[in-house]
Every structure is written in structure tokens, then in C-alpha cells.
């Protein structure tokens, strides 16, 4: 039995699908496939790709370490100003990434709020370092994780936690042994989203971390630089490599964790 789909829904849904898929088709049709493997063998490309994968993964771990507790706080604890905190967390979502990069510079740059102290006290400067890339990526990706995990926590049945508490479990034990396993799929979904966002990060990275091959030049920056140099074919090929790698990894993760 086929579900009868009302036309007022079907038409915009179809247009929406085409709108999302058409640019990708443009990329695929324009790709000089023969040069794909040659490009993949170029050291600049492999360096940028490796840097992208490593920094996005570290950024995801950072987001998990900071984001899960933050999500738990938002979902389970009543505290004054909770709504404001939640609104602040979503700011990086709506902030243009370049603005995020400028904000990071003003906070963590060499002359920044905290950055000048880091520089004077420990001699640490974050811009133009791989750590800077991780920070930029984590900044834009963290809200995705927090929102996913908070949603999962709110959807989870609190009776298990209450049962654990009545059986004498501390809040920490109840969190690690009951809550975390309960919302594990939500955390995994948030982490995947977070990783994908970090992998595609461009604006905050080029503004805060700069662009230097091997240190801060991730794949999106390499794509931009290739495009800037007038090599459109090269930029298309690099875009496609990034697309294939991310889709492959996301699909593999989905089967493993999110089925």
C-alpha cells in the first residue's frame, strides 16, 4: 500500500531535494576525474587532508569532554540564568565563522583578553598553530554537540536515574552508569555532527589560525587557496576529495553507531 502524498507537500519537498543535490551534481559533473588520483598523491593535498582529519577529530574529543557535562547541566540542573546560558551556547551557530575568528583573536590572540596573559606568563601563542585550528573548529562545532546531547538527555527517562539514586548511587555513579549509557546514541549522533562541522570549518580557522601548509592549512583552506590561484579544476578536485572522505567516514560511523 502506497502512502498518498499530498501534492502541496510533495512539490516543495522535491524542490528542496533538488536544491540540495544540484550543487553537488555540479561539482561531480565538473570534476576532471582523471586527475583525482594524481591530486590525491600530491604531498600538499595529503598534508592538508591529514591535518583536517586530525584536527577535526581532536576538536570532537574536546567538544565531548566539555560539551557532555555542559549539556547535562542544561538538561538536569535548575540554575538561575539557564535560559541565557542556553542562548549563549547557540551563538556560534548563528555567528558568521569569520566573526567567530575575530572574536577568538580578541580573546586568545597575542593581544587578546586571555591570550596576552598566556603569552606573557607561559610564552604560549595560539594563532598560527595547529592548536589554534583545533580551537577554531571546537568553537564552531561545540554547540552542535551540546544541543544534540541536551535533546537526548531531555528525551531520556529520568526514572532510571531516580531508581539508581534510591538504590544508593551517588549522582556521579548514576551519571556514568545510568545516564551516559542511556543517551549514548544521542552523544554519538552529536559527535558525528560535531566532527563533520569541524571538518568543514573555514572562516574561523583562516581568521584565527591563519593559513600555512602543514601547520594550519586544512582542506577547506587548501580548496580556497587553489581557487584563489585561478586553478578552478584543482579546487573542484580538492572539494570532491574532502566530500568523498567525509561522506565515507560518516556512512561508516552511521552503520556502526547510529543504525
Amino acid at each position, binding site marked *: 500500500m502506497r502512502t498518498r502524498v499530498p501534492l502541496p507537500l510533495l512539490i516543495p519537498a522535491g524542490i528542496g531535494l533538488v536544491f540540495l543535490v544540484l550543487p553537488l551534481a555540479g561539482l561531480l559533473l565538473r570534476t576532471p576525474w582523471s586527475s583525482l588520483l594524481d591530486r590525491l598523491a600530491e604531498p600538499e593535498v595529503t598534508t592538508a587532508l591529514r591535518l583536517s582529519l586530525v584536527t577535526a577529530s581532536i576538536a570532537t574529543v574536546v567538544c565531548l569532554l566539555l560539551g557532555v557535562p555542559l549539556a547535562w547541566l542544561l538538561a538536569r540542573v535548575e540554575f538561575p540564568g539557564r535560559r541565557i546560558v542556553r542562548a549563549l551556547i547557540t551563538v556560534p551557530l548563528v555567528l558568521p565563522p569569520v566573526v567567530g575568528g575575530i572574536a577568538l583573536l580578541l580573546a586568545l*590572540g597575542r593581544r587578546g583578553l586571555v591570550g596576552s596573559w598566556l603569552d606573557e606568563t607561559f610564552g604560549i601563542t595560539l594563532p598560527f598553530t595547529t592548536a589554534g585550528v583545533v580551537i577554531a573548529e571546537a568553537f564552531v562545532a561545540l554547540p552542535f554537540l551540546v544541543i544534540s546531547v541536551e535533546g537526548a538527555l531531555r528525551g531520556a527517562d529520568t526514572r532510571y536515574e531516580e531508581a539508581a539514586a534510591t538504590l544508593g548511587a551517588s549522582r556521579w555513579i548514576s551519571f556514568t552508569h545510568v545516564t551516559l549509557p542511556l543517551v549514548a546514541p544521542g552523544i554519538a549522533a552529536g559527535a558525528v555532527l560535531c566532527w563533520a562541522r569541524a571538518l568543514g570549518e573555514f572562516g574561523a580557522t583562516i581568521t584565527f589560525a591563519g593559513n600555512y601548509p602543514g601547520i594550519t592549512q586544512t582542506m577547506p583552506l587548501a580548496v580556497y*587557496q587553489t581557487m584563489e590561484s585561478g586553478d578552478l579544476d584543482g579546487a573542484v578536485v580538492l572539494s570532491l576529495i574532502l566530500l568523498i572522505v567525509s561522506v565515507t567516514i560518516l556512512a561508516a560511523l552511521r552503520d556502526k553507531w547510529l543504525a
Partner: protein
Amino acid sequence: MTASLAACGSSDETGAPADGTTGPITVFAAASLTESFTTLGKQFESSHPGATVTFNFGGSSALATQINQGAPADVFASAAPKNMQAVTEAGTPTTFVRNQLVIAVGAGNPKGVTGLADLAKPDLKVALCAEAVPCGAAARTAVEAAAVKITPVTLEQDVKAALSKVKLGEVDAALVYRTDAKASAADVDAIEFPESAKAINDYPIAVLTNAKNATGGRAFVDYVLSADGVKVLTAAGFQAP
């Protein structure tokens, strides 16, 4: 022919210009032209009622790519001939100014930079333009002429981005055009260095063959080449070609 007619028409003060120089004129120009072209655009608009000039400033290579991908531009002003050649629909370009590199440092030159050799010091953070853009190509030529080895911390996509890293204090020095340093004289000091004479950039300008408003574009180019235009450009620190 049309060019000289348009130039005559611009002095017509009756309101509607006789040369048909009306409507929007879209100018794609190198980032280093931002200040002077903004001024020229305003002057042009007041002497050509009915015409509006819209600018798209950026790295010359990116602008060239955008034009080749069909971005609607009437005029292209590039910071190097190479990027002009890359534009397949460019008309006949004219070199209208030249620009030279300087070392931009923070106000008061806190690190005491005196020349290119100082930029090789390991404790100095340096920003250069990426080689794909004209300021980066010029920087490479100058650095090679000086036979020094500079390891930048970042390769910026246009000259303004490199300069803003100096303004923010994130880098100690950057190689930028003299005109850019001059436009930001309140925040940065410009250190001249002899090797920059070996890396002078010629700036070509052209009306694009596919221009929607070719008449307007031609009139704007003529205005840039006119005595009024030269005055603004030399005041900004550009050299005559």
C-alpha cells in the same frame, strides 16, 4: 572614439549625461585599491549623475576566477598583469599605476625592524601574502632578491588580510604595498627596503568584453586615467606607470 566622447560627456553639468553614462557600474578591483577607488567612485558619481559605482574588492586572483565564472563585472582592475591575462573576457588593459612593497610593523616599530634581513629572525612573526596573489608574488621576488630566508607564520589571501594581522598585533611584520601601509598609517609604520625596487607591481585596468554597462565602464576607466584620478591615486602612494 567612444572613450573620448565619454570623457567629454562627463563635464556636462546639465544633469542627464549626454554620453549615456547611467545606471550601475560594477568594478572588480584589487584589495589594495580599496581606499583610492572608493574615493574615485564617489567623485565619479557626483560628476556623473545617474551613474552608481559598486565595488567588489578582493585578492586579484579570486576576482579573476569570479569573473571567469560569470560574475557580473564591467571593469576589472588587477594588482598584476598575470591576473588580468587570466580573465578571458578582458578587453585591452591599460597600466594605470605601479605599487611597491614596504615592511609594515606595529606603530612605533617595537621590534626595531630596519630591513628585510630582520624578518628572518626566528623570534619575529611574519605574515606574507600567498604566492597566488600579486602581493605574495612580489614578496617572493623581493625576498629572493635580498637572499634572505623568511619563514612566515601565515600566507594570507590578500594584502588587507596580511595588514590586519599586523594591526591586531598577531604578527610583528608583514610585506604589504606602500599604499596599504599609508592608508593605515595610524596603526602601522612602513619601513622602506631597497629590494622592493626589484618587485614593483604594474596595475592594469580594463573594461570587460562581456560588460553589461560597457559605456559606464569605459567612462569609469577614463576617469581613473584622468588628471583627477591620477591625483587621488598618487596621494594614496601609488606611482605613475
